[in-house]
């Protein structure tokens, strides 16, 4: 612990953790799993520190500009009076405002149990009450020793939520971190989500700011269990503003015949790192990962995915695309591991990128490690520009060049989210992204969505 230097970025945030550990008795440490996790987090951080571009997994993402701000952990007890109308449909809101859980926004919904992690942590430190099975599951999928941001998340473990879906809910669950802060804010959240056998749920994980005054840095760790024949649609919305940063580490563990579909929409947040892994632990589990980055200015999106085939007859398919303008950067690293017992695996991966400026950057790296012999596995990656033949063809049909560009870019992008099952959300995403494309090709505002009616037919 003594190796942690408070002068290094973000390390000043750990002083409260030090205090809580130093004030703890050996008995408390032994019986309180949350204290144990904090300690493991601190120890791991002391060993590795935060990643730098010298770390292979962080090679193209320099965090320095994003972590240098004098961040503070949440202090204000101010609550959010009502849910901002960001999304166009009714949801089950599990909302964190300036890093703190907002239980008053949540009304009881059938089939889902939401438990505040902070409440559990506080309770455990006061009376050491025995914890249930699900509370003990925190840290089971993602260990502090695996990843420095998981370590940091563990060291700061307090706010978060445990979601247990026991019946298919009628509405999507809106898991949102909303900030409105005059000073740089560090939001550390931990989620544990379990879908009981045979249930289906949609979870939207949104990073949103209500004001653009100071940067917000999110460090979010999510552990997700899919029991037999359950189905999860998980949607990451990262289309907020330039001062909204996020490192999101997610692991999904799947049992037999469960299905997961992930959509990661990155189009506005200044820096986002998604470290997403899926473990297909039992036969006939299936995962589909969709990712779309539409980036401009100096935005950076870094998508690291890992799919582990650990059982026979599982399927995974991955489609990540990016449109990168100005000085923006998109990074894709996609790992597929097919373990020896995972015969009859189907695994597909593709990553396609369009560069719109000389200064835009794309790094793409597929990594396949296959140890079974009866496997169908394909991957492909492309980096290119707008096809000029197609632009000319559209121009000869009367489309001005920027309109032709938008039409082609939109078609390229829409492939990623056109299967998204919630129609109002899909239309909303489409509008948000179309507006961004109009901005990128510098098309006058009065043309937006008036002449181009993508939603027709």
């Amino acid at each position, binding site marked *: 612990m003594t190796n942690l230097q408070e002068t290094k970025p973000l390390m000043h945030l750990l002083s409260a953790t030090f205090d809580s550990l130093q004030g703890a008795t050996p008995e408390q440490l032994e019986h309180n799993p949350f204290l144990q996790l904090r300690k493991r987090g601190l120890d791991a951080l002391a060993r590795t520190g935060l990643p730098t571009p010298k770390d292979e997994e962080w090679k193209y993402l320099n965090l320095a500009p994003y972590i240098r701000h004098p961040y503070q952990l949440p202090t204000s007890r101010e609550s959010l009076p009502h849910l901002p109308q960001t999304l166009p449909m009714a949801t089950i809101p599990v909302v964190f405002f300036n890093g703190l859980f907002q239980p008053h926004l949540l009304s009881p919904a059938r089939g889902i149990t939401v438990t505040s992690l902070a409440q559990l942590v506080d309770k455990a430190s006061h009376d050491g009450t025995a914890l249930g099975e699900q509370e003990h599951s925190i840290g089971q999928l993602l260990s502090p020793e695996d990843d420095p941001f998981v370590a940091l998340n563990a060291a700061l473990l307090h706010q978060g939520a445990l979601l247990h879906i026991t019946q298919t809910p009628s509405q999507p669950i809106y898991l949102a971190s909303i900030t409105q802060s005059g000073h740089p804010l560090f939001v550390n959240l931990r989620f544990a989500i379990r879908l009981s056998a045979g249930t289906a749920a949609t979870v939207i994980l949104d990073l949103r700011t209500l004001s653009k005054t100071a940067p917000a840095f999110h460090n979010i760790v999510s552990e997700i269990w899919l029991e037999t024949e359950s189905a999860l649609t998980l949607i990451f919305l990262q289309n907020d503003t330039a001062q909204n940063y996020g490192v999101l580490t997610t692991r999904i563990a799947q049992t037999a015949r469960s299905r997961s579909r992930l959509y990661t929409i990155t189009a506005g947040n200044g820096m986002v790192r998604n470290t997403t892994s899926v473990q297909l632990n039992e036969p006939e589990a299936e995962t589909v990962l969709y990712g779309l980055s539409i980036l401009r200015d100096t935005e950076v999106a870094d998508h690291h995915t890992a799919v582990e085939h650990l059982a026979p007859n599982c399927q995974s398919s991955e489609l990540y695309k990016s449109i990168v303008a100005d000085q923006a950067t998109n990074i894709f690293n996609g790992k597929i591991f097919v373990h020896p017992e995972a015969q009859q695996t189907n695994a597909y991966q593709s990553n396609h990128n369009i560069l719109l400026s000389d200064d835009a950057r794309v790094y793409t790296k597929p990594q396949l490690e296959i140890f079974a012999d009866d496997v169908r596995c394909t991957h492909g990656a492309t980096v290119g520009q707008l*096809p000029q*033949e*197609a632009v*000319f*063809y*559209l*121009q*000869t*049909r*009367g*489309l*001005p*060049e920027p*309109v032709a560009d938008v*039409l*082609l870019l*939109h*078609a*390229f992008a*829409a*492939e990623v989210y056109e299967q998204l099952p919630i129609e109002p959300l899909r239309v909303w995403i489409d509008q948000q992204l179309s507006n961004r494309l109009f901005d990128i090709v510098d098309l006058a505002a009065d043309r937006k969505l*008036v*002449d*181009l*009616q*993508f939603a*027709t*037919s």
Partner: protein
Amino acid sequence: MHNEKQPLLTIENLHVAVDDKQILKGVDLTIYPGEIHAIMGPNGSGKSTLAAVLAGREDYTILQGKVFFDGKDLLEMSPEERAAAGLFLAFQYPVEIPGVSMLTFLRTALNEIRKSNGEEPIDTRTFLQMVREAAQLLGLGNDFLQRAVNVGFSGGEKKRNEILQMAVLRPKLAILDETDSGLDIDALKIVANAVNSLFGTIQSYLIITHYQRLLNYIEPDYVHVMYDGKIVRSGDKTLALELEAKGYDWLRSETLSSIELPSTTT
């Protein structure tokens, strides 16, 4: 016969190069409203270059010459301005546009052209009626309109799709660049029938072809023969038959004896 009318297209002494290689070496052509012209010629004579230059492709350098379309300087206009002014090119090799449905494509094109001409966007019902009629004219079903532009289309479907677009956009002048190539006889008849039935709404055609067979179905008023970047001979439709009978070799020897060509060292 057409003294009282303004020409729709006037090409004067057009010289064009691509990558320092001169392709067009002085083309003159005038098309009046109500006329069908055909340009024939062997491969590499410059026919498709002429079509591409008229449509506004950028890879070409205009060395010399002028082109006026409907009284305006065509070479000063962007491709989309040319389309809005009423010029249409049916591509020899239509381009695939993945992810863009035919309906979205046609509607966007039509509305952009209408907007340029100060008209309101078309209402959905009229639009749908229009494209369905056009599809029917080309022997294409309504499901064709749901497909992505040219993606997975057969060669014949791609060519018919070009004429479908022409039927929807209703230009003043349509240039058909080797639209007959790759069409079987039934599809050729369908295309020819569509071209003929739209004549009138579409004021003039410029039909570029290697073979005479399309001209059995679309009767041109004038046939021009292009050779080595120039129109070396013009006549009525009988010229096409003469070419068909004698082949382009005949033209080569005729041309060499009657036309001044740059001397070659062979």
